[in-house]
């Protein structure tokens, strides 16, 4: 059936699909719809009226004001938009409502297909704490820590967990609602902040605690399963380059994963999946310590930001398959028997300042030149002159490369970064350019401490670069008209006289 669909002949999996998301991932899903012959429906808040994902979709429906709670996180608003537009399916993307079991249930009760795992699975795995418990039950190694929520820190003894420890939101993901505590006296304050972030990000303030495993690598296994029992591990992704416990760079395969480690992680991943009724796409995240031991962290029952890395090495269109699986299709043998080829790396282009603790910045994009050519893929959510609403995640685009092997992929990434120009606001482009020449990254022997150990607060510009910048600034000033001296023009008698003279001639 797929062939026919692709050729634009027969009925696609759905006639119309609503994307309950924004930015680059909404555009990614719109593209999959286009290629499957499905009409795409975008939703937008008042802050996104001119957003690129709204331009890209076949249809667009307003869902509310800028505040996420009243728009992209509003279950009634999204369901209403789906009904009004006559969508037969909803793809939640990542973040927002993507792992919200209540939402998934409401979607299915409305007779609309939810593109993702079953609601019950979201519920049991969405609770990271419950997931930890079932992992233990399934004989999968987990990070040492408590298996119950962290209540009033005063009454809890973290001694048994040990310091440093990590506080994590049970409903967490994307590094939000996470705080490191290095001693007992820090617990109260950290718990407070973690709860606050957790509530604002997920509407649930439940927090638990794990021992901090560091230095370690963050490696995750991509699962894809259909509704007929077929389940495939589409290789792993190494996501160890992080700041604020959020991923900045991902690659596949992982330089730290041997065939033995891979086999063990795949086994653990399948065990976790077996604890629930599973289909569609999910990711099992592990910590990998220096001895090659892996520890279950959590299972994300949704599409990951970094799914493109897996698409490049496997050739599998994961988003298209998510939709086809939701329509009841079976995974093809070509997918189940897939053998990854080559090496892929993704860098995330964020509006943030690596020289100021990677603090997010808002504003508007100015110049926007993305690389292309062989082995380069860009998934962007903005174009030149796009305004960034401060309400949402500052991810501008994802730059991905594919090459024969890791060294060639790094060389290609360096080339692509050198072609990239982003103006208007500070981004992490410079960090990535530094990274591709950073010895521990180039060698592959890096871990989650890479940024703390090697970037610190970032390198200072070299004197020759400063001289270049100086030449550029002088050139710019000399070749640009000075800003209009309005005072003189508008008010002074001389200005008026001059104009009158001009008219007489």
């Amino acid at each position: 059936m797929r062939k026919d669909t692709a050729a634009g002949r027969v009925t696609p999996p759905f006639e119309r699909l609503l994307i309950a998301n924004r930015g680059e991932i909404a555009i990614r899903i719109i593209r999959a719809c286009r290629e499957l012959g499905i009409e795409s429906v975008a939703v937008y808040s008042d802050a996104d009226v001119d957003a690129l994902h709204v331009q890209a979709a076949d249809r667009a429906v307003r869902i509310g004001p800028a505040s996420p709670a009243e728009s992209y996180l509003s279950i009634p608003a999204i369901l209403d938009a789906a009904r009004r537009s006559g969508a037969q399916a909803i793809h939640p993307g990542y973040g927002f409502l993507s792992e919200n079991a209540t939402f998934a249930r409401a979607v299915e009760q409305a007779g609309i297909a939810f593109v993702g795992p079953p609601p019950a699975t979201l519920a049991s795995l969405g609770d990271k704490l419950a997931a930890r418990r079932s992992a233990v039950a399934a004989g999968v190694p987990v990070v040492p820590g408590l298996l119950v929520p962290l209540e009033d820190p005063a009454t809890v003894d973290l001694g048994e967990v040990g310091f440093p420890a990590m506080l994590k939101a049970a409903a967490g993901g994307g590094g939000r609602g996470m705080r490191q505590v290095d001693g007992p006296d820090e617990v109260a304050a950290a718990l407070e902040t973690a709860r606050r972030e957790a509530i604002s990000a997920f509407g649930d303030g439940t927090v638990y605690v794990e021992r901090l495993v560091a230095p370690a690598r963050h490696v995750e296994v991509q699962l894809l399963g259909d509704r007929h029992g077929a389940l495939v591990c589409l290789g792993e992704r190494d996501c160890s380059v992080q700041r604020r416990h959020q991923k900045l760079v991902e690659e596949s395969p992982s330089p730290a994963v041997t065939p033995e480690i891979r086999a063990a992680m795949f086994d653990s991943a399948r065990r976790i999946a077996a604890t629930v009724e599973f289909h569609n796409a999910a990711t099992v995240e592990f910590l990998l310590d220096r001895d090659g031991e892996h520890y279950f962290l959590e299972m994300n029952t949704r599409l990951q930001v970094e799914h493109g890395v897996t698409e490049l090495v496997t050739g599998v269109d994961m988003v298209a398959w998510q939709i086809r699986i939701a329509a009841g299709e079976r995974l093809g043998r070509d997918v189940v028997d897939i053998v990854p080829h080559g090496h892929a790396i993704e860098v995330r282009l964020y509006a943030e300042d690596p020289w100021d603790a990677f603090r997010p910045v808002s504003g508007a994009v100015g110049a926007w030149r993305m690389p292309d050519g062989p082995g380069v893929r860009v998934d962007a959510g903005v174009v030149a002159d796009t305004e960034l609403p401060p309400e949402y995640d500052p991810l501008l685009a994802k730059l991905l490369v594919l090459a024969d092997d890791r060294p060639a992929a790094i060389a290609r990434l360096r080339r692509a970064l050198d072609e990239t120009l982003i103006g208007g606001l500070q981004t992490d482009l410079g960090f990535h350019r530094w990274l591709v020449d950073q010895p521990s990254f180039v060698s592959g022997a890096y871990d989650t401490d890479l940024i703390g150990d090697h970037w610190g607060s970032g390198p200072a510009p070299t004197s020759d670069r400063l001289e270049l910048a100086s030449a550029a600034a002088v050139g710019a000033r000399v070749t640009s008209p000075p800003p209009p001296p309005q005072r003189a023009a508008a008010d002074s008698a001389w200005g008026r006289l001059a104009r009158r003279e001009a008219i007489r001639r």
Partner: protein
Amino acid sequence: MSDLEVVIDGQSVEPSDGWTFAWIDEAHGVAQLSRDETRATLLVEGSGSAWVVTVDGRRLPAMVRTWRERTLAEAEVASHASAGPLNINASLPGLVVAVDVAEGAEVAAGQSLLTIEAMKMQNEVRAPRAGRIASVAVAVGQTVTKGILLLRLD
């Protein structure tokens, strides 16, 4: 060019010689510097004497002034009283999710004063210097725009 003073990120920098400057996309600040056979494409955004040059991905403020402009500017600065209370303004737009100090409180340099949530991140605002909180201009739950007064430090 020699009569122009260039201050990049606070330090005076002599432009290196021999470069030819040309705009590629002036509206977006894309320019090209060429010297002999070599050339470099880079971003120069701004106008008049105030520019931002992006070097190795980092945006650096670049002030390009004639000596006359410099003198005028310095005179203007001098004319303002540099003493008195310190206004602490929002460095980014967002939602005030916590105010940790009250009017009259004595605070140490670096002490957390309040927290603004933006881009889903908790951003702490800390005291740039020790002092006493003269006034608090915002409250929890309030949305602030960039540059708005948050509190005043005596």
